[in-house]
């Protein structure tokens, strides 16, 4: 009994201590700012599971707030004209409605802006999957000559001279403005962006059929490859779920379709992942994006070639270039035969894709421009 008493006392103290830390005051007695740790389960829904968050960059309210400010602040670009938010607009799920974004002096980005949400679950970033952490990611558009064209020494000095950032960095990290903590703050903000309230998410894993219309449900069957069987008994269906499956509507395992060629061209002009790995198998392959909010992220594909979801569906139905040597086995799995969906099937699939829009997320003030 005595032993267990000590155990209870120990855990009681540990719990009390941790509570104090989690809910730490903004400023302690010595005047030092203490960040307010964010409880991960308050951000990430149980339905998604807990993401593998970076252990050396715990989410704090102050860190997220700083990251959000930096995300929307044009002083991160060389001429203070462009922020990250210029090409990643919340109302478009942090994508933008142009094929290639406009950067410094009107120069164009090389690829279509990817949407930004649920990134805490992703293991690689950019269309060519070249970056594995968000803290690395943020430096790329900032320094790209055709995007924000900033130099790091200039940015460091600019942040240091800004009284607001002196205060914000102190609150978040108890440091002067510096580029490392800048990247950590932006990582925190990006990690905190969650889209979870679409009707698709309410429907998932498939037992709440009331939230979808009959057409959307039929679309779900097509999407998940559950319709019909051909005359030989082989399964058909559009099989979209292989690369865009699960509640996050994305395949996170690269080998299972997380990185794939979807047969856009017989020969890809853009090397995609192959440009990073130099592997012939990777030429023209790209990271498969999540389809949550896909109805608002037009135009589509890495080069924004498809202006509408109808065009996207047409591609997968009858436009796949099976000659592409890197085409994903799942795409070519049925002997190189086009799906040839009927008009009705296309409409149903479109309806299902539109059920993935999370209008709450698109207007969530926690992610909006603070300026």
């Amino acid at each position, binding site marked *: 009994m005595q032993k267990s008493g000590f155990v209870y006392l120990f855990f009681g103290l540990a719990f009390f201590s941790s509570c104090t830390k989690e809910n730490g005051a903004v400023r302690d007695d010595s005047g030092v700012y203490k960040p307010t740790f964010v409880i991960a389960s308050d951000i990430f829904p*149980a339905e998604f*599971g807990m993401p593998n968050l970076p252990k050396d960059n715990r989410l704090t309210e102050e860190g997220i707030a700083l990251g959000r400010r930096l995300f929307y602040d044009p002083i991160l670009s060389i001429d203070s004209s462009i922020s990250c938010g210029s090409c990643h607009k919340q109302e478009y799920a942090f994508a933008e409605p142009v094929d290639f974004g406009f950067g410094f002096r009107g120069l164009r980005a090389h690829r279509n802006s990817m949407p930004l949400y649920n990134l805490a679950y992703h293991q690689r970033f950019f269309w060519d999957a070249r970056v594995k952490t968000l803290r690395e990611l943020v430096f790329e558009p900032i320094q790209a000559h055709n995007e924000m064209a900033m130099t790091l020494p200039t940015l460091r000095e600019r942040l240091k001279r800004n009284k607001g950032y002196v205060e914000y960095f102190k609150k978040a990290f108890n440091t002067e403005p510096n580029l490392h903590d800048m990247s950590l703050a932006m990582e925190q903000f990006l990690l905190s962006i969650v889209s979870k309230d679409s009707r698709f998410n309410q429907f*998932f894993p498939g037992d709440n059929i009331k939230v979808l219309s009959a057409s959307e449900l039929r679309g*779900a069957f097509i999407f998940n490859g559950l319709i019909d069987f051909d005359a030989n008994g*082989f*399964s058909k269906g559009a099989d979209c779920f292989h690369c865009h499956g*699960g509640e996050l509507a994305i395949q996170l395992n690269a*080998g*299972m379709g997380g990185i794939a060629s979807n047969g856009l061209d017989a020969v890809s002009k853009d090397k995609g992942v192959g440009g990073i790995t130099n592997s012939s198998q990777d030429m023209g392959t790209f990271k498969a994006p999540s389809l949550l909010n896909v109805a608002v992220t037009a135009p589509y594909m890495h080069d924004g070639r498809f202006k509408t979801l109808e065009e996207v569906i047409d591609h997968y139905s009858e436009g796949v270039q099976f000659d592409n040597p890197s085409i994903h086995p799942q795409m070519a799995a049925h002997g190189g035969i086009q799906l040839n969906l009927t008009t009705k099937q296309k409409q149903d699939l479109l309806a299902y894709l539109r059920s993935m829009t999370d209008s709450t997320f698109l207007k969530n003030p926690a992610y909006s421009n603070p300026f």
Partner: protein
Amino acid sequence: MLKNRLILPFVFASAVMVLMNSCEPDVINGGDKGVPTSELELAFVGQIADEPLPPKGQDIYKEKSFGESMMVTNWSFLMSNLALVKENGDTVQLGDGYQWADLRGTRNVFNYKGIPAGKYKGLQFTMGFDSATNHGNPQVWPSDHPLNPNINGLHWGWSGGYIFQAMDGRYKENADAASGSFSFHTATMQFVTRYFLPLELNVEKSKHRVAVRINADRFFGGAESIRFKDKSVSHSEGAQDEILMRIFLDNSLYAFRIFEE
């Protein structure tokens, strides 16, 4: 090298395929107190025709039966009941018994501590799970657990259940032919498969390394062979898919070899 010996030329029909709802053997976690323990490094290595898979990204096709050649681009599988089997039939469960081996990725070597000293006669595992696990909420698993779908990417999604094994790749009928694709995804309870790999292992050193080498080509050549030209896809659902998957798994009994290295 002396210890790199083949225990058996093939995994015999001692590898058995049964449904998960059959009896489970007793499982011992860590063994008896006071018994010295060792560390086990367990590696799962993909091969074609007894040679390692070519490095990822290289366009190298290896010959399989019937003159076709193949290249594996994706291959991973989920295990439960992973355990060493003692000579008396008792088992020492490895970790929590679950594992995900990604033979084309970086997650295929696993370390287990606390393996009790003694003589063992084999390694067992089940490719797949019991029904409750297979159809339960996959998000209950911690973020780094092999069954977390965000880690393994092997959950069917809303229709429920896991893909127990996914093997995808490309093939050529002959050297001059254009390549085609093959895709075999094992799923649904009827295809839960139990394997027993015979191994004479005397655990006495501080660390032992055991390698399970798995030949992809043998999944397609056996009592009944699979010619990609004729049949190259099975998702385990639908009459023809199921027949094909059964052949694939029957052949898999001869695909595993186990060594102490």
